[in-house]
């Protein structure tokens, strides 16, 4: 089984139209695959979908529903509601920091890749930033699918060795007095940063507060917006 898998993977890049030399041992096979599998990802993915539908393994309507969920039902607007509630309601904030799963579930943002949540709080003295150096772990129900830069080798490699440099590159300047805590998501715990509440937001409604909460502020690579600013 291992051989089957490795053989497929060895040719996957070539089949994907990627400029990579196939391994010598499988050169003939790779050439064969290049002809057998359409190089255009659109065609290859359509072919796979048709096969899985024909085999009864997937239902097209379910795929439509999943794409809709990824595009419209999850995303950083959900996380922003969590943050705004925490800013507006000290009891909620206490629950969120003590038991993130329970507190986030109160707002209904549960589901795949949000099963084990931990919320870390930014303060004037501590700045938290989240990364996944091994793959692309990210809290889907509250933040949606991760952006390309979060999944990039550039971010994943440097966030742990040079967090201050990365933050500066992304527009977050921290004084030397501030302690930086990097959270490498090496297991199934998913981290959400509770950003600092901006000055001048006293008395604002939760809706207005939520509009100040950016995706990046919940990863730790940005600050929440000042009132009147635009994302």
């Amino acid at each position: 089984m291992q051989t089957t898998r490795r053989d497929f993977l060895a040719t996957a890049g070539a089949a994907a139209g990627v400029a990579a030399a196939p391994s010598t041992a499988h050169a003939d096979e790779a050439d064969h695959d290049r002809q057998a599998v359409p190089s255009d990802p659109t065609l290859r993915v359509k072919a796979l979908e048709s096969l899985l539908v024909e085999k009864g393994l997937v239902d097209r309507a379910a795929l439509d529903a999943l794409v809709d969920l990824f595009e419209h039902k999850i995303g950083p607007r959900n996380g922003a509601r969590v943050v705004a509630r925490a800013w507006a309601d000290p009891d909620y904030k206490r629950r969120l920091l003590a038991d993130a799963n329970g507190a986030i579930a109160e707002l209904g943002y549960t589901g795949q890749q949000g099963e084990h949540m931990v919320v870390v709080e930014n303060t004037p003295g501590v700045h938290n930033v989240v990364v996944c150096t091994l793959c692309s772990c990210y809290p889907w129900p509250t933040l949606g699918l991760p952006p390309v830069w979060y999944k990039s080798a550039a971010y994943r490699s440097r966030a742990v060795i040079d967090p201050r440099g990365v933050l500066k590159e992304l527009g977050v300047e921290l004084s030397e007095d501030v302690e930086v805590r990097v959270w490498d998501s090496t297991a199934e715990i998913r981290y959400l940063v509770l950003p600092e509440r901006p000055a001048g937001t006293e008395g604002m409604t939760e809706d207005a507060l939520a509009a100040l909460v950016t995706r990046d502020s919940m990863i730790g690579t940005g600050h929440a917006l000042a009132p009147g600013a635009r994302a």
Partner: protein
Amino acid sequence: MNGVHDVGGMQDFGPIRPEPNEPVFHATWEGRVMAMNMAVAAWRKFATDNRRYARELIPPAQQLVMSYYEKWYAGLVANMLDAKMVTRDEIESGKPAPGTPRLTPPLSAAGVPAFWEKGAPKTRDVDAKARFRVGQRVRTLNINPPTHTRLPRYARDKAGIVERDHGVYVFPDTNALSLGEKPQHLYSVRFGARELWGDAASARDSVFLDLWDDYLEPA
């Protein structure tokens, strides 16, 4: 596996390039790949750990140049081959092998919300003894398994402090090989930036990793 997926601490990958107003998917096929990954996962023929391991097995030179969703496509097919859900001939021809019975029922559109809500928790309600306690100083093992592990290279043979006991979780190193879940305590362990990167790093900063009992020894 000491593979190219394990990039923590590597250098020279260039600038980070945020994309303003980035769409969730950049092409329709990306969304279909993601949705197929979910819908096929609903059969529970393989676990998240198997899926990560499959993507790690993509040969390194290709892994570095394939797009994210190309890797998820390749990994999905590899997992389905392993689980005997499809054959290589079927993938190449795009047609089911003659006479193969249809597997039914797949995840339906009506079933998506419940499937989503339920998630796939990795905690296990078993009586595993915690080998370490919060506040304890620990050292990570110097291990180099040629297979899946979630102990990154940059954090091996390093001393840190247990900051939190998350409870009992599935152990990925065995689960990815389908050798069992081996549930054990998972901890948040804090490492000083200088312990990881030397004296040029800030004395104030730290990196937290989530690490299982089997990765740790008392320091």
